[in-house]
């Protein structure tokens, strides 16, 4: 197998047995964590400064940045607003959605 094949096989096997919801959750957590990290980097703040800026604790910043936080929609919107982060809020039906709702 070449490198691309190994990577594709790895992704296939690591997600095997995981529900689609769990895979999408993992990806969402990763993207959220990266967005928060990127924004802190752009603002040139250390974790403590960033925590004060957001009005949360330093351990909470660590949770956000590691994708380990479980936040409410209100908290998520609040952080996005404070960081000037836009996210796509469109919710649409998939073309080939399963008849039983998935």
């Amino acid at each position, binding site marked *: 197998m070449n490198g691309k094949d190994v*990577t594709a096989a790895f992704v296939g096997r690591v997600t095997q047995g995981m529900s*689609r919801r769990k895979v999408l959750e993992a990806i969402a957590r990763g993207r959220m964590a990266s967005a928060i990290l990127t924004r802190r980097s752009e603002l040139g703040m250390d974790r403590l400064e960033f925590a004060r800026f957001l009005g949360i604790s330093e351990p909470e910043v660590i949770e956000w940045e590691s994708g380990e936080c479980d936040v409410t929609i209100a908290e998520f919107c609040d952080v996005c607003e404070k960081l000037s982060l836009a996210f796509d809020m469109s919710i649409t039906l*998939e073309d080939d959605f399963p008849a039983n709702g998935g």
Partner: protein
Amino acid sequence: MKRLDIRDIFAGCRVHINEDFYRDFFAFADRSAEQDYVKKKTVQLLMQLSETPVQILCKGGSFEKLSDYRDLYLIRIETMTLNLRMLFIAEEDGQAYLVAFEEYAGKFASNYEKYSPLAVKRTRPFRKGAGK
């Protein structure tokens, strides 16, 4: 809207995995009592490594540059009982090469000295153009 296929999400993935890493990872993950968490976290971190510059990721707690070894980084996953380490080489063009997987019971300072030459050796096939 087209139903999202998991394979499509990783189609343009900039993370390359070698066979040694693949073997060692699943030798651990398939017998781990915490495999659900480890696999889900791995998907998250692969996605981050593929889409975000490694210099930014290293400002968080999951990624770290090994200061004594050029281009060599690690990903840290801490479970309830184990510390897992995934070593990779990151290149300036954003490509990353996962080359080694290690598990440690408990917490102690790790010695990565042996990984510098090993990582270079394991990355060589990718750099020759295989898989690109």
